[in-house]
């Protein structure tokens, strides 16, 4: 089953200095359960590609099908509805809601997808990432590694068909980063989620099925 099918994706923005071509003619596809790494130097357009694939932003031209839906034809709410309950995210800067506890952060995607019994599911997911005792803590009371574990629990609690991870270890020290990556790969395997992993860590890239390299907005 094809999770993502992207054809000739381009993204350009108009700035004060003229039109900036961030991505040019990118085509790729991702099968269910497949793991790809997107690597490339800083500023090459990795995050932009990830955003387009996940429908967080709209492309200037080209087509994207995510989970069988033509994202390029949908408006923002339509794209959000495709993601609800099916797509997970892990970010470099964790992106937990500061006002919600660890448990509430994990419950969030379940609630947004109107899944019943969100609390029980979230509790067991937190247990899986080893934070059962920190359920009621606010993000500000957790270390960076712990916050990223909560983010992993939040991403996997809906058993996503695909997970998008943008430099998930970028803000962590090496040892913590390694344990996070291990956890992520284990959980992904258990749920057979596809994974798009943006990283510039070659070691990490080598653990993936395929490695795509982006340079100056083009796929090599």
């Amino acid at each position, binding site marked *: 089953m094809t999770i993502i099918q992207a054809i000739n994706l381009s993204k350009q923005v108009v700035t004060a200095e003229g039109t900036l071509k961030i991505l040019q003619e990118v085509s790729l596809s991702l099968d269910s359960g497949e793991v790809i790494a997107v690597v490339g130097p800083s500023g090459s357009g990795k995050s932009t590609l*990830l955003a387009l694939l*996940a429908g*967080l932003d709209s492309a200037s031209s080209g087509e994207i099908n*995510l989970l069988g*839906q033509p994202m390029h034809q949908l408006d923002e709410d339509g794209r959000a*509805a495709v993601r609800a309950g*099916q797509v997970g995210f892990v*970010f470099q800067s964790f992106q937990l809601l500061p006002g*919600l506890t660890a448990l509430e952060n994990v419950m969030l995607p379940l609630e*947004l997808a109107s899944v019943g019994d969100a609390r029980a599911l979230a509790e067991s997911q937190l247990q899986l990432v080893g934070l059962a005792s920190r359920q009621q803590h606010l993000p500000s009371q957790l270390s960076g590694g712990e916050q990223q574990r909560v983010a992993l629990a939040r991403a996997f609690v809906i058993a996503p068909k695909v997970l998008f991870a943008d430099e998930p270890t970028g803000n962590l020290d090496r040892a913590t980063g390694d344990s996070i990556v291990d956890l992520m790969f284990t959980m992904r395997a258990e749920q057979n989620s596809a994974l798009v992993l943006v990283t510039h860590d070659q070691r990490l890239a080598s653990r993936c099925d395929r490695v795509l390299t982006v340079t100056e907005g083009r796929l090599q």
Partner: protein
Amino acid sequence: MSTSIDQGAGAKNTQLSRSTEFGLAVRQLRREFRLPEYLVLIFALVLSVAAVTSVGFFANRVERAMAAQAATLLAADATVASPQTIGDVVRKQADEAGLTVTDVIEFPSVILNADGDTALVSVKAVGSGYPLRGQVLLHDKLYGEESAATGVPSAGEVWLDPRLAGSLSSEVGDKISLGELEFLVAAFISFEPDRAGDVFQMAPRLIMSADDLAASGLLGEGSRARYKLLVAGSEAGVDGFGEWINDGDDASLRFETVEQSRPAVQSALVNVRRFLGLAAAVAVLLSGAAVALSARQIAERDMDTSALLRAFGAKSSSVVRIVLMRLALIAAMAALLGSLLGYLAQFVLSSLLAQWFATALPAPSLLPLVGGVSCAVLALAGFCLPAVSKAVSAPVVGVLRRDLPKARPSSWVVVGAGVAAMLILLSWLTRDAALGSLLVAGLLVVLGLLWLISRALISTAGRVKSPFWRRALEGLRRRPNSVSLQISAFSVGLLALLLLAIIRTDVLNAWQKQIPDDAPNFFMVNIQPQEVDAVESFLQSRNITGQQLYPMIRGRLEAINDRRIGEGGFKDERARRMSERDFNLSYQGKPRETNTVIAGDWWAADTDQFSFSVEEEFAEETGIALGDTLHFKIVDKKVSGVVSNLREVEWESFAVNFFVVGTPALLKDKPASFVTSVYVEDGQAEFVRDVVRKFPSVTVLEVGTMIERVTGILDRAALAVQYVFLFTLAAGVLVLVAAVLASRRERFHEAAILRTLGASRKYLAASMSREFVFIGLLAGLMASTIAAVLAWAIVELVMNLEYHFNWVLWVIGVVVGVVAIWIAGSVASRPVLRQSPLAVIRSQV
């Protein structure tokens, strides 16, 4: 493969349930409202709701008091009032219309008890059948049981105001003398239906029977009695009777129904209410600025939340609803807390103005809560929504790109929404859309001017070259707009408080002081012609010399030249009323020293011409010119004369003066009573007692108590308005706190850099302190100085009095500015100092 597509399609219909959305809103709010920006937002809203509802609750109590008494406000369905006895023609007409009637005659007088103590009373002589509507409640002994009066006082008996109990008569059964008669105190008055009409309480009441009037000798020529005929009956009968009165040619008769009497009664309160409303509005406006400042920070957090929620599949409409629900929760919380505070605050307001009211005010209704809730909603909608709504549409990619610029609503939208909210609120607070718009414009101009002045001050201050102030001044220079806002917001509140303080002390004092020390302190009115010699020798025996007794004749101005009064042509309503009503004329041969003739010439003392001298302001207002012929009606005779001069009168001297004075030839043979004003240095109580004993029909009025009453009323009104301005000052402090919080991130950054460079926490604290002291100094100087200038303008230009700069208040203003801003600023910036440099740098990632 196909299953996942189906699920994808299914997911499209995913609709967050309202309860989930609400749950999210509550959860987020529960933790976030401890954040400083939420606290500022909530405090600001609570403050504006409290300001609005305190005024609202108070006004509501007054309105309820009036509504409760409206039916009985006149003690009748309608009244006919006249400065003289109401004739039989009128009674006959009322009788034909099938109306019941009774008489009420009111006038001031002085009573005397067995021990020789005296007191000024407001006498009300009532005919049988009074009151036609409502009832009089009496105490059988002082503050004893209350019971409805049956009938009116019997002959030889009076009912007394309990306020007189302490000084004059402590028991039912005591004897008092009034005029030439002695009366028995039969009861104390607990409630009098048509008394509520007197918003400003006058002298204590005495009710007697109208049948005793003639024998008392109190109603001689020139007594200041007001005659009223109360009527009651069918609506058609009352209306027809009213038409007959209004169409009749006797302009001295005034027909008044309950509806007509109320606006007149309320007009004084309406004015105070407007000032209170204005004070509350300024508090709301400043709170609005604090709301807008904190909303900006809240919106920045909301952008992250909004982007994240939508990344996880929430629809934008859901996000909008979550934000609105949270705002609604905040509004509800603020409305509740604010209304509670407002309810408590109105007790102070009511007690400040309690002495204005004849009866205790009833408890307020819950209606002002509507105002409180709308105020919270309006303030949020006007000052918070523009920023927060931007957050809702923040780009979803924000979750990946933290460096994305934060979208902010255009300043025009923010200001526009704020102004619109203020317009609605002020129009509602003042119950007058035109006035509301004018006030909004005025407020914006005032704030704008203050803002410009503070900008100018800051740029001047920036040039100060002092190592001690250097860092502090850098802070000001770097954020000139924010600092100007802080200074102007704070100084508006302080300025208003100072100005009112100056008015309450200096202006009222100046007004009282300009009355000469030996100005007359007593008026003697209602002296009958046959008593003139006796009164003169009585005064001489007491060494009160040089006082002249002036004749006073009641007359009504009927026409100026060929123009009849009442046919238009009068410049304003006041002038029309003045000339329509009967007023007092006098005559004299020689000019008076304290009157200056400014046009025309004074007549020869023994002239046989028929001439008038008119006070110039009165002439101006009524449109009387030199050479005009005035036609008066005195009793039943027409008296006409030419205006031969205009004169300027020093009213401040408290001497007896007249608008219109005629030649003796014209007026000498007309029925007159005499008046005089005297200065009694000591033994004032005995003086009053002796006058009342020797000349029972003469009324002695003390000038001092009259002045005290007027200034007392003004002072209380100013105090009440000042009290509401305390909310404004608090709102000014909040603006400051909000602005400091808004600059927190920037300050964090500066502090971190300075600390990594080796600056100690103490050094940072000191330089930040200095910054706030400086801001406070600017705000205090500005408020104090502008208040002094305005006070000078009021005293010198408007009131034509001499202004004395009150440096104590000036210093107080500056000190309050420095201390309040220093404290508020230090508290708001504490977190900046507490952070370790590392944490600060990390938080910038």
